[in-house]
């Protein structure tokens, strides 16, 4: 089953910079895909299109067989609840504690309080932030903020997980832990798309690699490495 499908998708920003050019790509359910490419090649744009943070200029995007380009505004939240997203700039709610930030993602989908109280500490333990539960984002180190964002993205077990440089501010040991987590999540059937620069991670995992350059897919390899 095709989980994600791009058909001739282009994205040209207001200032005429073309971030993606005529992209065609199919990602099947349960796949694990690395998006690699130099800075500014369009990886984040690709991910932002999937959660409809931005809209494509031309072309159509299908998620689980559904065209999300003509989605009505009031259906967008539904889409986003089914996609966990680790943002490159974290996007934490700056006036809420770590606990509240993660709980928010569960509240939004109407999970009852007792489930929230059980699941949030559990996921915090997974990313190693159990003892920072009551800190505000500005009281955290860069890597800690990144891990909060990771925890929020998969706390509600979404069928799709998008990760935009999830290990950019993490030391190798922690990164390895996070990658193990992503693999486990992927194993239970979650489709994972991860944009990354980290050569060592890509090389170690040996998964499908899609390489972008200047908004064009220049490589799509089943069991690739970073840099062909």
């Amino acid at each position, binding site marked *: 089953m095709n989980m994600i499908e791009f058909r001739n998708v282009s994205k040209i920003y207001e200032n005429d910079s073309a971030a993606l050019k005529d992209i065609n790509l199919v990602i099947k359910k349960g796949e694990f895909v690395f998006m690699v490419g130099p800075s500014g090649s369009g990886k984040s744009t690709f991910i932002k299109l999937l*959660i409809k*943070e931005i809209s494509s200029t031309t072309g159509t995007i299908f998620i689980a067989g559904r065209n999300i380009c003509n989605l009505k*505004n*009031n259906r967008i*939240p*539904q889409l*986003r*609840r089914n996609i966990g*997203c680790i*943002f490159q700039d974290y*996007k*934490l*709610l*700056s*006036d*809420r504690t770590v606990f509240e930030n993660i709980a*928010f*993602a569960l*509240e*939004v*989908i*109407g999970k009852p*309080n007792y489930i929230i109280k059980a699941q949030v500490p559990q996921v915090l333990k997974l990313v190693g932030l159990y003892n920072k539960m009551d800190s505000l984002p500005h009281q955290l180190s860069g890597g800690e903020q990144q891990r909060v964002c990771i925890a*929020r993205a998969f706390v509600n077990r979404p069928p799709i997980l998008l990760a935009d440089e999830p290990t950019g501010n993490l030391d190798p040991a922690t990164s390895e832990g996070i990658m193990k987590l992503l693999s486990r999540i992927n194993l239970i059937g979650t489709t994972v798309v991860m944009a990354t620069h980290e050569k060592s991670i890509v090389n170690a995992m040996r998964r499908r690699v899609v390489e972008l350059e200047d908004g064009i897919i220049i490589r799509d390899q089943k069991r690739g490495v970073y840099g062909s």
Partner: protein
Amino acid sequence: MSLVFRPKHIFGETFSSLRRNFLMGFTAITTVAITLFIVGVFSIIVFDIQSVLNSIENQVEIAVYLKDNISDDLKIYIEDEIKEWPEVEEVTFISKDQALERFKTQNEGSDILKEIQGNPLPASFEIRLKDPQKIEQVALRFVDKDGGNIEGVDEVIYGRNYVKKLFSITAVTGTIALLIIIILVLATMVLIFNTIRLSIYARRKEIEVMKLVGATNWYVRAPFLFEGSFEGFIGGGIAVLLLYFLNRFLLIKGETALVETMRIKNLALLGTDNVIIFIYLAIIVIGILIGLLSSGFALRRYLKV
């Protein structure tokens, strides 16, 4: 949509948000309180000025002085005639004795009383009209075809020019007062909207993040709307309190002076109509509504994520 009404979410969010964004809540509340307070003060003052002017208007009367030699029959005939006119609100007969009595009270202690011998004052009818604007029309009925007064009537006094000018003043001040109140209310709305919009602007990033995490518009909006109405309610409440104290320690003195000197009844505070209660209620209702609507409007552009 199914998640709109989650009272715990809405109330919980509002209070923790007020705690977290103390500065902004505080600012919104003071703005509501101050502007509505000013509207309140102004309403009371305008109401009282209108009362004073109305009461002056209503004191405008026609005095019909009778000849001393008028027969009782004629007097009764005139009185019955006047009473039948539909414009007349009230007609009072003042006999020669009553007139003297009244003159004495009004000039008590003055030397002039010593010099009065006998009773030089005429008897009279004092006529108050339902609509003071018709005064000239009514007064002219005491004039006969030849331009003199009708039989038994010595003189008719109603200060034609004075009355005309008085009406032009009350008309102008009435318009001005109404316009000013409208301007004030509009200004209040803009000021409160400005404040709430700025405080939402300062939180636009948070709204964006909520939406990206999958919150529906209503899920994001509800706590903001509740917060806006709550701030409007508290601000309105403070305005009412301030107004209450201002009334109690200041304005009521002014009204007391008005009542004592000019015998004016229908005042905002001292009147029997409970106008002030109405003003208090209106302030709170307006506060809540403006808070609610301002939040709603200000949110719109940040919800488009």
